[in-house]
């Protein structure tokens, strides 16, 4: 089915998208909100119907408040719908989606992309073993499913999520075999001023550390996963010391830890698939999580009618997201002439201020959630870099040696990134490898060309019912 023309379509119902939807209702714009999940909240406030938290959780409360506020909004909703293609149309944009009621085509004058962020993975030997998962994945299990990743878990990576997951496991009755933080303890104190802007979050962080200390959890700083191997029915993780640049450091203890799950992740990166598909300008900024879509101060992209809000425009965290969502919709209202310049400036001013303030803290969290390039440079040649297509580091290095200098080149030459995940797991690590081997900038190495479908969709499901005789077959080629 094809919808009527909306004023605005909002892609993603996380904190940015939900706030945008509420604002659209307030501005009396004809709006539609689309999200793949059954309810709003994105990843940060994700919940499952019928499952309630065992322990008090500020994120759960904020998520509930968001869903509550959204329920009053006078907008169309398409929850459980996967958007598989977005294209420009005469009136604006056309979105092709698939959901519980079948395929739907949504046409809209303006589009707010609020697709949030993806987790950044740094490969290690054995990361494709069952039992290994990301930190964001562990968060989904803990919070939305109220389930432990394991009974005795190694939690590794960098950034605040590391401690959030460890605390969640301990609180949930599990054991944390070790917290493995790539960053030194002092990494946090370097940013004391920005941290001070959010005393509530600092307090929360301290409470996590207290929980871990009481449980006697070992926290290793400047350590990283060397490898994970199957060990009977469980896993054995080797944890090794690293230098500031992420490469192995000799002279310090290596740990061999038996565990039944490993959770590992290195921060978030913007999910730019849709904005890339639409040809918007992107820029690489490590302090904002890597490649992100470029927006002006009114959340406009350089493609007419396209706006972006939340982490997709740079990973600055959930607190800075709702403000961006609101400013994006106010911009749309002004661009559609439902608001004049003065009204826009008045309504948007407060949100812009809050956005700037909140972003400062979020940016610090992003900067802490990283491991140096040495971690990738020193990976052994048989590490699988692209899990989907089982492409090893050695294959990539050979192709780079043969002259592959961009992500797209490597994709063509090795099939790396051509699997079902569309490069979402491996592209960042692979690009870092190219940068190390060729001394080219991330900007020169580029991103992979985005192609539909945005995620795999059933052929039958999107084709729908049709009449063969109604298929518009063009004139056959000359004989």
């Amino acid at each position, binding site marked *: 089915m094809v919808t009527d023309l909306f004023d605005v379509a909002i892609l993603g119902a996380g904190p940015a998208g939900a706030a945008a939807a509420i604002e659209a209702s307030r501005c009396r714009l004809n709006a539609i909100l689309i999200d793949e999940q059954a309810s709003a909240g994105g990843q940060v406030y994700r919940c*499952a119907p019928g499952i*309630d938290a065992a322990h008090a959780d500020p994120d759960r409360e904020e998520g509930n408040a968001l869903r509550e506020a959204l329920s009053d909004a006078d907008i169309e909703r398409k929850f459980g719908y996967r958007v598989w293609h977005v294209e420009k149309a005469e009136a604006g944009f056309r979105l092709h989606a698939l959901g519980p009621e079948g395929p739907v085509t949504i046409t809209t004058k303006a589009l707010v992309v609020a697709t949030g962020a993806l987790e950044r993975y740094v490969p290690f030997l054995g990361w494709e073993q069952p039992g290994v998962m990301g930190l964001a994945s562990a968060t989904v299990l803990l919070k939305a*499913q109220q389930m432990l990743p394991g009974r005795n878990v190694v939690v590794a990576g960098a950034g605040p999520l590391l401690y959030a997951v460890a605390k969640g496991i301990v609180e949930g009755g599990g054991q944390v075999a070790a917290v493995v933080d790539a960053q030194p303890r002092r990494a946090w104190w370097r940013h004391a001023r920005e941290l001070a802007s959010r005393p509530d979050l600092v307090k929360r962080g301290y409470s996590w550390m207290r929980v871990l200390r009481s449980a006697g959890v070992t926290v290793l700083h400047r350590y990283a996963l060397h490898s994970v191997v199957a060990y009977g029915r469980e896993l054995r993780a080797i944890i090794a010391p690293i230098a500031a640049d992420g490469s192995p450091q000799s002279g310090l203890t290596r740990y061999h830890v038996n565990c039944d799950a490993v959770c590992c992740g290195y921060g978030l990166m913007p999910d730019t698939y849709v904005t890339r598909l639409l040809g918007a300008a992107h820029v690489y900024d490590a302090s904002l999580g890597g490649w992100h879509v470029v927006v002006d101060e009114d959340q406009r992209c350089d493609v007419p009618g396209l706006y972006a809000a939340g982490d997709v425009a740079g990973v600055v965290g959930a607190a800075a997201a709702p403000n961006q969502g609101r400013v994006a919709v106010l911009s749309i209202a002004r661009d559609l002439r439902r608001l004049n310049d003065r009204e826009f400036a008045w309504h948007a001013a407060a949100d812009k201020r809050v956005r700037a303030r909140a972003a400062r803290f979020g940016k610090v969290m992003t900067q802490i959630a990283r491991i140096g390039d040495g971690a990738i440079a020193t990976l052994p040649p048989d590490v699988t870099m692209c899990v989907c297509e089982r492409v090893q580091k050695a294959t990539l290095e050979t192709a780079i040696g043969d002259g592959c200098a961009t992500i797209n080149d490597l994709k063509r030459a090795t099939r790396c990134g051509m699997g079902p995940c569309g490069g979402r797991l491996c592209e960042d690590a692979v690009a870092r490898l190219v940068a190390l081997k060729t001394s080219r900038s991330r900007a020169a190495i580029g991103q992979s060309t985005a192609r539909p479908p945005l995620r795999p969709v059933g052929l039958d499901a999107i084709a729908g019912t049709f009449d063969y005789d109604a298929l518009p077959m063009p004139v056959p080629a000359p004989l």
Partner: protein
Amino acid sequence: MDADLRIRGAERGPAVVFRFDGRDVPAFEGETVSAALWASGIRSWSAGEMAGPPPRALFCAMGVCQQCAVWIDGTRVEACRTPVRAGLVVQGRPLW
């Protein structure tokens, strides 16, 4: 029923049973197929001769990595985005 991985004290939906590769798997409404498999100790399965990434019940938990893809009613779906329900029949690879 492996209660160890499920956090005590959380409210869950009614108990259900679904089938995975011919075995009964206990779960609760609201859980995803991935999470329920995980709690039951089913962390991976054979893909047979099918090409693609090696399957595991959980990696990204967000419908991104596609490694948890399973077959339900002849179509392929992400287990981490599929809610359990009583009588659901899930296969790690297509029946052929």
